[in-house]
């Protein structure tokens, strides 16, 4: 009897990509919280929470992909048959991890939408949260609803970051705009992931590129602050 750990699809490439996206999300979340601690501006606190939720969602995505395979052999006459079976308890872990991944991912992006749309009206927010709850519930059962909802949120966020880039005209704002544009494209691919797994692979690669743009932005911030400190 032999146990094999399977890290995800495509020899665990998707798990590796998700691990990197966790690091990037947590890095943005950590810095935003640091700014909040300094100036106590609530926008930074919510922004930090949004990226924290995205980071946590990817942890659940990794958990949802992990499978333990139970390999056993049966000998019949001159033949040896090899069977692989899933561990039953892992199926439950996988299911709930996937539910949590979808829930945290949607709430993370919805929170970003809420912060950047700067909606302060309480009545509208209550309606927004109610509709979000419905969307989350539907997304749990229908994969395409999850991705289509994300596409719509990401269209808004991408347009927001494009307008912001036009306003401030710097490379960092461009990187953020590009990052969200690529993440949006990745979710367009994910919509068709149930049709063909290649769509899933393309989506994952694009997701990685998108988050790498965000990482580049974070690295540029670090370099800039070091330069400022040296010049003082």
């Amino acid at each position, binding site marked *: 009897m032999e146990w094999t750990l399977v890290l995800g699809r495509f020899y665990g490439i998707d798990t590796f990509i998700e691990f990197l996206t966790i690091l990037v999300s947590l890095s943005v979340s950590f810095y935003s919280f640091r700014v909040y601690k*300094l*100036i106590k501006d609530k926008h930074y606190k919510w922004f930090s929470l949004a990226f924290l939720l995205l980071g946590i969602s990817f942890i659940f995505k990794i958990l949802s992909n992990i499978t333990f395979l139970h390999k056993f052999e049966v000998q019949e006459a001159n033949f040896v048959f090899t069977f692989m079976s899933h561990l039953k308890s892992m199926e439950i872990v996988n299911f709930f991890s996937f539910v949590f991944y979808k829930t945290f991912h949607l709430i993370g992006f919805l929170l970003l939408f809420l*912060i950047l749309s700067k909606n302060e009206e309480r009545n509208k927010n209550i309606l927004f949260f109610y509709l979000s709850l419905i969307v989350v519930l539907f997304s749990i059962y229908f994969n395409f609803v999850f991705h289509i909802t994300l596409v719509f949120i990401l269209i808004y966020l991408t347009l*927001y970051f494009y307008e912001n880039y036009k306003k401030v005209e710097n490379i960092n*704002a461009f990187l953020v705009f590009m990052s969200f544009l690529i993440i949006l494209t990745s979710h367009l691919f994910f919509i068709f992931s149930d049709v063909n797994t290649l769509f899933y692979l393309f989506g994952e690669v694009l997701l990685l590129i998108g988050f790498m743009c965000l990482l580049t932005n974070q690295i540029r*911030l670090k370099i800039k602050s070091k330069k400022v400190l040296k010049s003082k």
Partner: protein
Amino acid sequence: MKTKRTKLEIIRDLLDTLQKNRKVKITHLIYKANLSNNSIKPYLEELLRNGLMEQFFEDEQRLFKITSKGNEFLMEYSKIKVFSESFGL
């Protein structure tokens, strides 16, 4: 034409003045930060509440000085500015 300063830039200007001087009167802050008597009030309250500066009294005069947290903010300012600009916060 000069664009309107952001909240972050006004906080930087106020803390910059406090960092360059050991103790500062409110009139000096108003002058250096280019704010009116009324518009400076919410900023002062926020800086005090967030522990970026502190007030004390000397010869019955209200004075302000920067705190270590305020100095930390100035060190981080350029990074915070780029961060908030890049995400449009």
